[in-house]
């Protein structure tokens, strides 16, 4: 819960959102982390710059407002087509001098290479959720074993049917996961060819579709159109939600790790 490291939590520190090319502009009109928020600024070192704001250490970090501010700053950079390497939420460095001397100077080359890979792209994320009643109805229709168990459970008082309820829920959950994996595969087949990189989380019963795509600026409209067509095909069955343009949260570490000769992105 507590990230203990150095000094007493009073005074201020430098909250680091991410790294951008030195020629980038600080996001304007976007409020940063903290209450009240300080202006978001760039700390430049040669060809790279850290996106930072001052933060008061007098209160814990991680309120809903802080999380929203973190993504708002990074996403506004992405929306303005600035390449950005997002840092994980909660990166705090003592002061601007340390940002330059200890973060940017030693990592310049690595950051620059990562930014080069991401230049001209932004992340889009697609979330899907089933129209629950419609899908559950289809499952009951197609699985006689589930339909039977459902009838049994319905006939028994709630307390008596506990084990059957758990079994029923498990079967339904497994079936939702299977359906989700099929739908997620179709989504990846449709959208991944429009992206430079793509990644998809395994389907779960609650979240059949959860995928992210690194899309070139020139392809944003086409990508959105393809997502819209999928959503139209799935109307009433699976609701799609498209988020973006976003900072490349799902791809930044891969890009930087690859520079290091780490495991390639898969």
């Amino acid at each position, binding site marked *: 819960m507590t990230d203990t490291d150095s000094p007493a939590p009073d005074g201020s520190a430098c909250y680091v959102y991410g790294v951008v090319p030195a020629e980038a502009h600080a996001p304007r009109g976007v409020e940063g982390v903290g209450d009240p928020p300080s202006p978001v600024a760039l700390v430049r070192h040669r060809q790279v710059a850290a996106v930072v704001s001052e933060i008061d250490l007098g209160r814990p970090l991680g*309120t809903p407002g802080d999380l929203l501010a973190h993504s708002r700053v990074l996403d506004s950079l992405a929306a303005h087509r600035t390449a950005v390497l997002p840092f994980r939420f909660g990166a705090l460095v003592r002061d601007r001098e340390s940002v330059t001397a200890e973060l940017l100077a030693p990592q310049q080359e690595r950051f620059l290479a990562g930014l080069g890979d991401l230049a001209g792209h932004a992340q889009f994320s697609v979330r899907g959720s089933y*129209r629950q009643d419609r899908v559950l109805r289809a499952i009951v229709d197609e699985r006689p074993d589930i339909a039977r168990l459902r009838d049994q459970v319905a006939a028994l008082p709630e307390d008596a049917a506990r084990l059957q309820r758990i079994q029923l829920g498990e079967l339904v959950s497994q079936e939702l996961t299977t359906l989700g994996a099929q739908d997620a595969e179709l989504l990846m087949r449709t959208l991944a060819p429009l992206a430079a990189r793509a990644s998809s989380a395994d389907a779960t019963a609650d979240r059949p579709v959860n995928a992210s795509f690194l899309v070139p600026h020139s392809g944003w409209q086409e990508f959105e159109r393809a997502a819209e067509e999928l959503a139209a095909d799935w109307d009433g069955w699976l609701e799609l939600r498209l988020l973006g343009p976003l900072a490349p949260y799902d791809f*930044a570490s891969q890009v930087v790790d690859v520079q290091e000769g780490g495991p390639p992105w898969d």
Partner: protein
Amino acid sequence: MTVAPRPSHYLDRPSSSGLVDVIDLILDKGLVIDIYVRVSLVGIELLTIDARIVVASVDTYLRFAEAVNRLDLRDDKSEGLPELMDDMQEGGARHKTRGALEGAKDTVSGVVDRVRGHGDDDSDDDEEEEEQPQERPKRRRSAAARKERAE
């Protein structure tokens, strides 16, 4: 084929991300600076750690069992997941094992509440809380009852 250009009619296209989406997007994502280099990192209490607990559990199964149970097979009006999520959120932060992202919103605010010394109002619940989580949210129960009467 439709000729007229169609705006995003089927696709949910929010102009800015809501909290649940943001938690999903950013937690555990992005570069971690202290693994690359020793920096003068400042320690501060982070509130968000609990938000990513995702545990499949009996509780989850019971939730799906309830959903499939209250399904009225003759009713062709479809309830969207958002409504189900509202229902579940009434269960509040006490279902720690509920897992799933829609719980994270509760968890974050729940953590904040706890840190501030509020939110410790669970003690008036019945003893069998862990045993019968499906009975908790009152609106869910009455919604199910309404459906039964309608049948």
